[in-house]
C-alpha cells in the first residue's frame, strides 16, 4: 500500500539537510505551514536558503523564528517588509537577500517544477531588478532571462489530503503552495484533514499526489 502519511511533524521533517533550499508556502497569514516551520526549528538544519513571498512577521514562529535561531543563510522573497528580526539580521550583515518580483518568483518556481530551466519575462526590464541579467527582444519588446528556482524541500499547507498525497486548499490558502509542491525534491505537507483514498473528487484535486512525498495531519489552530 502506497501511504505518504507520517505520524509526526518530526518524522515529516526527517532528512532535511544543512544547506537545503526550502520553499515555504503562504501569503500573509494564509496557507503558511506553521507547524512544519516549528518542526524545522526543532529539527535543527542550518545554513538554509528560504524561499517565500514574505519574510514573516512575529518573532515567535515561522521564518522569523528560524532566522532568530541563526538557521537561515539566505532568503529569496518578494516582500520582506514587516519582519523586525529580518531587518536586524540584514543590517548586521548576517543574512543574504535575493529580492524577486512576485510574479517572477512564482514563475521561476513553476518552471522548476515543469522542467523549464529558464524563460523570458517582461517584468523588471529597465529597472534595478534587470541589472546583470540578459535582455533579449522578441517582436520588438525587451524581456529578461530568468532561471528556474530549484529546491530541495517544499513545506506546504493544504486543507485536505489523502494517503496518495492528493491535495486541496481553502480560500486564498492556495497561493504559492501548489507550485512549490511541484518544485522540490522532497515535498512535505501539513493538512487540516486527511481523508480516505477516493474521498477527494478527481475533478477538484489541485495538487496531484505525484508532487507530494509526505503528509502530516495537524490539528486545526
Amino acid at each position, binding site marked *: 500500500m502506497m501511504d505518504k502519511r507520517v505520524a509526526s511533524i518530526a518524522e515529516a521533517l526527517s532528512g532535511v539537510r544543512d544547506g537545503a533550499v526550502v520553499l515555504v508556502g503562504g*501569503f500573509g497569514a494564509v496557507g503558511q505551514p506553521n507547524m512544519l516551520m516549528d518542526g524545522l526549528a526543532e529539527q535543527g538544519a542550518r545554513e538554509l536558503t528560504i524561499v517565500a*513571498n514574505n519574510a514573516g512577521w512575529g518573532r515567535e514562529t515561522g521564518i522569523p523564528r528560524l532566522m532568530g535561531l541563526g538557521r537561515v543563510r539566505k532568503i529569496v522573497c518578494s516582500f520582506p517588509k514587516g519582519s523586525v528580526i529580518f531587518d536586524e539580521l540584514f543590517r548586521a550583515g548576517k543574512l543574504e537577500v535575493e529580492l*524577486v*518580483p512576485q*510574479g*517572477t518568483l512564482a*514563475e521561476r518556481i513553476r518552471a522548476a517544477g515543469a522542467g523549464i530551466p529558464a524563460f523570458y519575462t517582461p517584468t523588471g526590464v529597465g529597472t534595478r531588478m534587470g541589472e546583470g541579467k540578459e535582455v533579449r527582444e522578441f517582436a520588438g519588446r525587451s524581456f529578461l532571462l530568468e532561471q528556474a528556482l530549484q529546491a530541495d524541500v517544499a513545506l506546504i499547507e493544504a486543507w485536505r489530503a489523502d494517503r496518495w498525497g492528493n491535495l486541496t486548499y481553502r480560500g486564498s490558502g492556495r497561493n504559492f*503552495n501548489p*507550485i512549490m509542491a511541484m518544485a522540490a525534491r522532497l515535498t512535505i505537507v501539513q493538512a487540516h484533514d486527511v481523508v480516505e483514498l477516493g474521498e477527494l473528487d478527481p475533478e477538484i484535486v*489541485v495538487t496531484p499526489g505525484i508532487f507530494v512525498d509526505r503528509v502530516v495531519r495537524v490539528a486545526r489552530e
Partner: protein
Amino acid sequence: MKDIVMASATPLDRTGMAARLVRDIPEGWYVNLGVGMPTTVADHVPPGREVVFHSENGILGMGPAPSPDAVDPWLVNAGKKAVTLLPGAALFHHADSFAMIRGGHLDLCVLGAFEVAENGDIANWTTSSNDIVPAVGGAMDLAVGAKQLWVIMEHTTKEGRPRLVEHCSYPLTAPGSVNRVYTNLAVLEVTARGFELLDIVAGLTIEALQTMTAAKIHLPRTT
C-alpha cells in the same frame, strides 16, 4: 506657493480621488487594485455596475471587507486584509494569478506611486534612501502586465514637491507603463507628447496646476 495657488481650489480628498477614478471604470473590466489608496477604489463602484476585482494572491471576484463577525481567516487580499468572495468568484494559485497579470488579461491595474514621468515611467517601490531592503511585491508584474495602468496619488508630496516629473528620480518600477494619473487636483493622460490634461478640480487654473507639476501639461488636441 502651494498655499497661494490653492486658495480658491477644492482639492479632492482620498475618497473623492477614488470616486473620480471609479467614474472611468466601465462595467465588465477586470481590475487589480494596489495596496493602500488604490484598494479604496473598490468601495466606490456604484451598485449594479459589475467590475471584477483581482487579487494577486489568487482571487478573482473579490468582494468588500466582511463585517468583523463574518471574517473568514482563509481569505485575504494582497494587502493581507480580510475580504469576501462575490458570486462568480474563482480561486487559483500564484503562477496562474501572475499569468493573468503578465499575460495582459487584466483590463486595469491601479497603483499608488512616488513619481510618474511624462513618458509613463513609474517609481513606486522604493525611495532607496529609507529602505534598507526594499520590498517589491507584485508591482513590477502589474505595471508591465495590465492593459491599462492608472496611478492614483497626491499631486505633490507633503512638502510640495511635484510627483509628476520629466524623469523619475527614484528607482523605476517599470518604464513607459502608466496610461493615466489621478491626483487630488487633476486627471492626466500619458500620451506620446507627455501629460495631457483630462480633468481639473473646480477653482484651480491650469497655470496653477502647472506650477505644481514638474513636467509640461498639454491640453487635449481638439479634432
